[in-house]
């Protein structure tokens, strides 16, 4: 009997057992799609976040109030917050070539006419644009004089512009922030998300203006950019020296590289966790395949008995079952890959995803191996029985 004939028999047998075939394929599909999707989410988030930190600009050093290593970072246990005095102190002591940027972030409500939008204020000084490398699609950033005067000027992210101003040019328009009127002076190109949230969904204003608006003298963080990449470590030490007399141990300083390292580690753990969950789905899918195959053994054993009684040889039986299992696994695997891939693409609206080839390969080969093993092994045993034992099998 030739291969074509074997394939025809296998297809016919699969057709005669549509429910079993579909259920087996479902196991493969779920396993493969789940692994591809979850690993894609993990990888996508990781790449997006590291990308956006790198995109912040280079040679940055971040100072936060509170001791992050002891778990205090930015939370309730922070006893002493940074103020603009600390910024001035750093500016004075570090030298003119290194830019010092105070940062405040706070939720706020925007209003234009009857349109309202909840978003985040990110406030800094006139160096912000250089340090964070933003691109203006229209208008300009706030100037030193505006920072000094706490001017009510505001720069808006691309999504804020879309939501509040649609297709009109926002520059020069009025905008209410927490009930106070501001003038829009510029809008920025889309940048994507970052660790501080979606940058496109933020508005930017001078730090002094934000302090007045929020009624505070505190600053969330201080960012320093080193002119020379080689001086980053030295600069970090200097910052610690400068801040220690006032804050003791109650502050933390990270270089951009360290931040990246910590985040990469964190996100790596996330990816592993997702891969773990995916692995469980794969296992569940595999057990599903195994169950269906084993449950159908008694029926299949009788079928094997009938085929042997009318003259099927051992390899006729084996080739039929191997082909059946391979066809099911490949078809299921293909559908699973398509679903995983399509799902990743569809999810991209909400979550960054990145399909990795190793996840595809792993999921596919694992499901295929399970399908083929549990499809073929019982058949192998049955094909070696005397036909009468196969016919009598219960």
């Amino acid at each position, binding site marked *: 009997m030739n291969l074509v004939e074997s394939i025809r028999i296998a297809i*016919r047998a699969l057709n005669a057992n549509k429910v079993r075939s579909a259920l087996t394929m479902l196991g493969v599909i779920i396993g493969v799609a789940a692994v591809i999707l979850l690993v894609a989410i993990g990888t996508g988030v990781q790449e997006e976040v590291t990308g956006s930190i790198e995109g912040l600009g280079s040679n940055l050093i971040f100072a936060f109030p509170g001791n992050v290593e002891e778990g205090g970072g930015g939370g309730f246990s922070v006893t002493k917050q940074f103020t603009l005095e600390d910024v001035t102190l750093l500016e004075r002591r570090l030298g003119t070539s290194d830019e010092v940027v105070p940062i405040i972030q706070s939720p706020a409500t925007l209003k234009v006419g009857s349109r309202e939008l909840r978003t985040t204020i990110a406030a800094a000084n006139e160096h912000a644009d250089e340090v964070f490398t933003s691109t203006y699609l229209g208008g300009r950033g706030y100037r030193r004089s505006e920072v000094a005067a706490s001017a009510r000027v505001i720069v808006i992210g691309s999504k804020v512009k879309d939501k509040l101003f649609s297709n009109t040019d926002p520059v020069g328009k009025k905008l209410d922030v927490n009930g106070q009127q501001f003038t829009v002076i510029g809008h920025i190109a889309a940048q994507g998300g970052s660790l501080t949230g979606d940058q496109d969904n933020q508005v930017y204003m001078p730090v002094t203006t934000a302090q007045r608006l929020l009624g505070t003298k505190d600053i969330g963080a201080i960012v320093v950019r080193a002119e020379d990449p080689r001086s980053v470590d030295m600069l970090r030490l200097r910052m610690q020296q400068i801040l220690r007399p006032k804050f003791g141990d109650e502050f933390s300083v990270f270089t951009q590289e360290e931040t990246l390292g910590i985040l990469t580690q964190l996100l790596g753990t996330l990816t592993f966790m997702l891969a773990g969950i995916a692995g469980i789905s794969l296992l569940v899918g595999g057990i599903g395949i195994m169950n269906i195959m084993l449950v159908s053994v008694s029926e299949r054993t*009788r079928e094997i008995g009938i085929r042997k009684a*009318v*003259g099927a040889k051992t390899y006729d039986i084996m080739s039929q079952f191997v082909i059946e299992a391979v066809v099911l696994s490949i078809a299921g695997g293909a559908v699973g890959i398509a679903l995983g891939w399509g799902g990743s693409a569809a999810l991209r609206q909400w979550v960054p995803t990145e399909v990795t080839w190793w996840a595809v390969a792993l999921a596919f080969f694992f499901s295929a191996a399970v399908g083929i093993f549990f499809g073929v092994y019982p058949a192998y045993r049955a094909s070696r029985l005397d036909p009468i034992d196969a016919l009598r099998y219960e």
Partner: protein
Amino acid sequence: MVERFGEAAKSTSCPEEARVVLEARGVTKRYDLEGITVHALCGVDLEVCEAQMLAVMGPSGSGKSTLMHIIGLLDHPTDGNVVVEGEDVSRMAPNDLAAVRNKRIGFVFQSFNLLPRTTALSNVELPLIYAGIPMLKRTKLARESLERVGLGDRLGHFSSQLSGGQQQRVAIARALVTKPSIVLADEPTGNLDSRSGIEVMSVLQEFNRQGVTIVVVTHDAVVARHAERIVHLKDGCVVHDELVKDRTIAEDKMRELEAEEASGFPESQDASGATRA
């Protein structure tokens, strides 16, 4: 009930010149179950002659099915030899036995043993696939075979869409499609009502008339009397071997049955007398 002809020859009842197509020589079968040994067959000698219709009869548990499975090469004897058309097949490898079954032997089982969710035509094609016959010829032969058992209009029906009698006729078509020298039928009417049973026996007798050797295993004397010769088994041994005088012709009974139905007054006594001993 069954007339016995004790004068029949002991080991063979073949008329002179008739070839022996199938032979069991000292076939024994023992089953060991948890220390208890069951002697299913105790050294059976049997010769089946060409174009003969033979019935193997005996009470339940006498070893009829076991004997049929062994001479049909579905099972191995514990001891003894099986000879098919002069060839000793006792030491053959499983794949060679499969080839012999495919070419020379057809089976009809009490429980039909058709492939589920598969059409009548595909079921009948099955032995031809394993014989390596190309598709077009295969379909043609299978269709012819089904037509010969009167199911030419049921080719595309699944087993579940056929009555028991029709399923058994599909099984007969499958058994005969490779033109085997011998057909073995184990209680072919066991799962059927009397009318379908008569139909099945009539088909078997028809093929026998055309020269196919047929062995029917049954516990039913009425069914056995359709054969030309009856071998009686008891506790795994052949106890009697007789030729049937005045064998039942299934076609005649069919006609009687039809006549009764036409008259509208089936006389219950006659009807039961015709089908049950």
